């Protein structure tokens, strides 16, 4: 069983784990595999003759130039990665990218409408407007102008 981008996908695996020759049945179809490690965390696969390059970087699966969130269940070493259900209640605003706070257009306690510009952020020579994720009041404001912020940082919280 693998989970790809949040979707659980049952895989029936035949062949020794870690072996070069194997077969996998997914969604009713059986694929002939040739699996070869080319570097740590990097595989070359032939899937019914088609070559694929697969690599693992944390929970990111790189496959043929695309990125997937991947998790495998059972004792295979990858930790399951389930998105926690979106919480109701107060909404936190985080920047989409590391950058510099240019200006803040609300103050603590202000009433805001969803979609209203609350902060202007600058990154890679571009300024972008960050909008209120919901309507309500500014419950907390954790940054100030000219501050550098990272993508996991909470800038402000909006609630009732």
């Amino acid at each position, binding site marked *: 069983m693998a989970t790809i981008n949040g979707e659980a996908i049952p*895989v029936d695996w035949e062949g020794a784990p870690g072996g070069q020759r194997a077969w996998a049945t997914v969604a009713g179809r059986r694929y002939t595999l040739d699996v070869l490690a080319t570097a740590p965390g990097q595989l070359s*696969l032939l899937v019914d003759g088609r070559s694929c390059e697969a690599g693992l970087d944390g929970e990111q699966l790189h496959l*043929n130039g695309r990125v997937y969130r991947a998790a495998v269940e059972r004792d295979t070493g990858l930790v399951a990665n389930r998105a926690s259900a979106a919480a109701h209640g107060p909404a936190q605003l985080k920047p989409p990218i590391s950058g510099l706070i240019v200006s803040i257009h609300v103050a603590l306690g202000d009433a805001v409408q969803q979609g209203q510009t609350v902060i202007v952020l600058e990154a890679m020579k571009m300024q972008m*407007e960050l909008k209120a994720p919901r309507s309500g009041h500014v419950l907390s404001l954790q940054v100030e102008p000219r501050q550098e912020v990272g993508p996991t940082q909470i800038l402000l919280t909006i609630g009732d």
Partner: protein
Amino acid sequence: MFEKVLVANRGEIAVRIIRTCREMGIRTVAVYSEADRTALHVRLADEAYSIGPPPAADSYLRLDAIIDVARRCNAAAIHPGYGFLSENPEFAEACRGAGIVFVGPSPEAMRRLGDKLQGKRTVASRGVPLVPGTTEPIADEAQLRRQAREIGYPLLIKASAGGGGRGIHAVHEDAELLPALRLAQGEAQTAFGDDRVFLERYLERPRHVEVQVLADERGHCIHLGERECSVQRRHQKLIEESPSPAVGPELRQRLGAAAVAAAQAAGYTNAGTVEFLLDQRGDFYFLEVNTRLQVEHPVTEWVTGLDLVREQLRIAAGEPLSVRQDQVAARGAAIECRITAEDPEQQFLPFTGTVQRFVPPGGPGVRFDHMLFPGLEVTRYYDSLLGKLVVWHQDRARAVQRMERALEELTIDGLSTTIPFHRWAMAHPAFQAGELHTGFVDQWWPEHRPWGGEVELAAIAAIALAQRQASRPVVAMPVDTYDGGGSRWRRAGRGGLARG
């Protein structure tokens, strides 16, 4: 010719300039910010010196530090690339003051053309048609509202200084006017240190067509035909090509004459680009002049066979143009796709991260000018351009096929990039038909079906990787052999896990 040239830039364009210098036997000096210590331009140059911390204002925009490096290592000239100090007349003046040749136009010509408002006034004197709009900067809110009403919506607020699509915002109604003004002024102030903005009518579905000009210091001025750069997002180009599918010999001749007239009106020298909007009826309007090498110069290089950096250096050294107008002949079709660190599924939002696996494309008719290597950290300090994938073929249809093939080969693991966007664009019927306009992305991209992924294949790969994680040694030699039996073949062939 110069013995030594300092390249006052970073990324793919610094690498590009160093390459031509080496071919000409010119020694090269790189400068770098602390974020770029291991960058390709540092590795390729003959000498490299640090000029400050990562923010551009503390490094690549520090004209004093750059001129100081040039003086100390006896560089005879400075090539500014594009962006940063390339269109800054004060920098060109400071170079002159230090006895160093600036590879570009004189500061006077730069002032007459590089500033968009001044440029409009300069070229209008030669009868080149302008896009309707204001010819003075916005002074106050009242004036803004009055002029906006006169021009009518939709309109554009544009920074007068700089280039590269920065400080340009579309306004569709009164309520957007003031916020757009503030964003445009803020970006212009940050990028160019000059917050003057003006208004221009937003033409309906025009094409962006620009003409490359070269002018030496002996009074010769020629054009190298046009580039079409209509496929844009945020007023920044994504795809460029030469020739334009909308320009035939007669129109090319008129565009070229207008571009040369614009350059001559300003006493322009070195390489420059005269930008026009081309409307549905085939009428064209002057937009601005970029007084520097353009990002998209390789498409012109490929169809004409000229090396534009070589021409720039020759002109700067006082040599004549290497060709006359009647010796310029275009062959075939070239297309460029800008590969940027952005997520096309998230409004092309910039993306920072570290490059893991990197596989450049190759083979006939492919050129990839880039700054990539495994381990490169893409930071928030500079713009998102990673590289420019350029292809050439005998005609446009085959060039599009070649670009599709090259995009399939190009692998940049670790970042979101515009590669999926370009693959979509090359396969789009309107792009293939050459039906382009500056609203192409806004019109068509929202309709695209986000690529759903090959989840079955990903599941198989994830399990195979998990089986090997942190346990088995790396095996590099296969043990499988061909078996004559039929069982493993039955499922081979089309269908199922089709290539995405």
